[in-house]
């Protein structure tokens, strides 16, 4: 991995180090969330272990005015956008369907229903284009998502309307228990050509490769040259979610080759080889990650239980019908029965 001067070219030593820092921090958050789930603090957790390079590289490659439309495994991306991880865990704790303001962070809500966010991203990007804005949309999904009809319809719309959108497939090679070869006929990246735009397959464990592919796709979109598809090949090192038991369908030997390609370790080695990371820096990043984990844990545990009536009723309609407000009142009455 030592021969990566080109991709690194545009980035300052500080920025290169920051990529490492971000990967370490989000991994720590991932690990902490898993622990919290095991301790019963979260209803569910979906690890992204192994996918840190894709998440960090792609997010950093976008400008801060750009928008990100995620699936559900992009917790790391959301962190890179500055969303508080403890707050976000409210989602996995079952407290709220939307723990952050999507406009503030330019990061749309998680989407559980696989691939259904892809047309949202395209519509959003069409809107940017109509406005003559220079904003670009990064739309993220998994390998399994590419099998859904919505994915295809959105690709075609993006091509027809030349929407400024970058499609990023986090191909982690599994959709729950289904491996890529039973999921996907042909190749994901190659499908782009059928829609008349560029598709590339890159090493999703190489943060600089991800950065550079996403950056140039975003630049093209910004210049009005339309959409691109990036297939970042990575690996889901953990279970699908905390509800999953991968030993039922995956061999340890499947994992082995990927363990040696850990995105953080390989990048750290390269940084060291370039004298961009020393022991002291590594330690202080680890300490920062530890602090983040502690803060996240604390924040999660202190998350207030929102008011039931507000949670259930207040974000259904902007202009709630009178009958609906009456139902809200009736509901509140059942909570605190009048004597």
């Amino acid at each position, binding site marked *: 991995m030592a021969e990566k001067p080109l991709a690194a070219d545009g980035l300052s030593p500080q920025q290169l180090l920051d990529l490492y820092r971000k990967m370490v921090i989000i991994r720590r958050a991932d690990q902490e969330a898993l622990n919290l789930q095991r301790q019963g603090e979260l209803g569910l957790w979906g690890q992204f272990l192994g996918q840190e390079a894709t998440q960090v590289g792609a997010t950093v490659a976008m400008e801060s005015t750009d928008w990100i439309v995620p699936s559900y495994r992009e917790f790391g991306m959301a962190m890179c956008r500055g969303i508080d991880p403890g707050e976000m865990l409210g989602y996995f704790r079952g407290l709220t369907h939307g723990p952050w303001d999507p406009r503030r962070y330019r990061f749309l809500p998680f989407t559980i229903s696989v691939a259904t966010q892809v047309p*949202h991203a395209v519509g959003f990007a069409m809107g940017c284009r109509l406005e003559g804005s220079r904003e670009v949309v990064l739309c993220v999904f998994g390998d399994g998502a590419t099998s859904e*009809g919505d994915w295809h319809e959105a690709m075609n719309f993006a091509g*027809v309307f030349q929407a400024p959108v970058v499609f990023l497939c986090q191909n982690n090679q599994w959709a729950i228990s289904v491996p890529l070869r039973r999921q996907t006929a042909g190749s994901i990246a190659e499908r782009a050509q059928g829609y008349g735009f560029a598709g590339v397959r890159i090493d999703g464990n190489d943060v600089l490769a991800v950065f550079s592919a996403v950056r140039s796709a975003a630049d093209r979109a910004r210049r009005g040259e339309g959409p691109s598809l990036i297939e970042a090949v990575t690996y889901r090192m953990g279970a699908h979610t905390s509800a999953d038991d991968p030993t039922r369908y995956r061999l340890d030997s499947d994992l082995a080759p990927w363990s040696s390609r850990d995105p953080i370790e390989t990048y750290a080695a390269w940084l060291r080889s370039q004298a961009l990371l020393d022991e002291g820096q590594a330690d202080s990043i680890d300490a920062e990650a530890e602090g983040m984990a502690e803060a996240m844990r604390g924040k999660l545990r202190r998350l207030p239980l929102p008011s039931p009536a507000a949670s259930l009723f207040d974000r259904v309609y902007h202009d709630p019908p009178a009958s609906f407000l009456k139902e809200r009142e009736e509901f509140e009455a059942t909570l605190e029965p009048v004597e």
Partner: protein
Amino acid sequence: MSAVTLGKAITQGLRDALAADAKVLVFGEDVGRLGGVFRITDGLQRDFGEDRVFDTPLAESAIIGIAVGLALRGFRAVPEIQFDGFIYPAFEQIVSHVAKYENRSGLPLPITIRVPFGGNIGAIEHHSESPEAYFAHTAGLKVVAPARPSDAYGLLRTAIAGDDPVIFFEPKARYYLKEEMDLPVPPLPLGRARVAREGTAVTVVAYGPMVETALRAAEAAAEEGTSVEVIDLRSLAPLDVETLVTSVRKTHRAVVVHEAPVFCGFGAEVAARLSHDAFDSLEAPVIRLGGLNVPYPPSRFEKLYLPDADRILQAVDESVAYG
């Protein structure tokens, strides 16, 4: 005052909405150059340009999906689904996103999905469906179905100007129904039924295409000496229960009619609600009329499948004769 058809009232509603707010976008299959298979969007692309009134590829799920994205971006999306029977590919986007995205994001979601619906037009399969119950049952949506031109205009303007998603069902068999009026009429709040005809003996509840049929039945009943009150719901969700109950408190009898199959149809909600809220006033069971519980038939049989004025009259007589 001049005679305006329901179709033209909707066209004018779209036109005025496009003129009033630069954020309004109209799109769907064949709505641009062609002006829609029913010509409802006729002339809009010419007058507002290809950016604001545009044809999409043939993909209903994406049409609604991009509407969500455009709405999140700040546009007021007014997608058209070409026919009732082609809304099903978009069901996931509607149920999981259009209905729920405000809940998850806290953002407004101004989307008005226009759907020509209903039968009686001699069409082939999938062109005569009445899928309104699916959407009425979906929390987070507003569902309207006007019956006359002025309401169509007024409700459409309200729907488009509002910040919540609305499924806007247009009774396609009534696109040529006329009303004397001056456009524009004021926007009409959603959720208010109207008494389309006053009467004392039985309440007939209808919406969309069946309102006209109910009025014809009421006319015939009047000739036979039975005074029928006709309620045009206009809005299914929210449902104006008060107007319904007020009417039944007066007539003590009710018939509810729609084109969709009776089983688990919207009439079930009306009947269940009236049977509950007006329990002590009802002197006869609420009768439900609707399409047969079979797939929509070949067009030569649609008149047998759908309720008509005769069946409404029979139900009215049955209700009056009860007890």
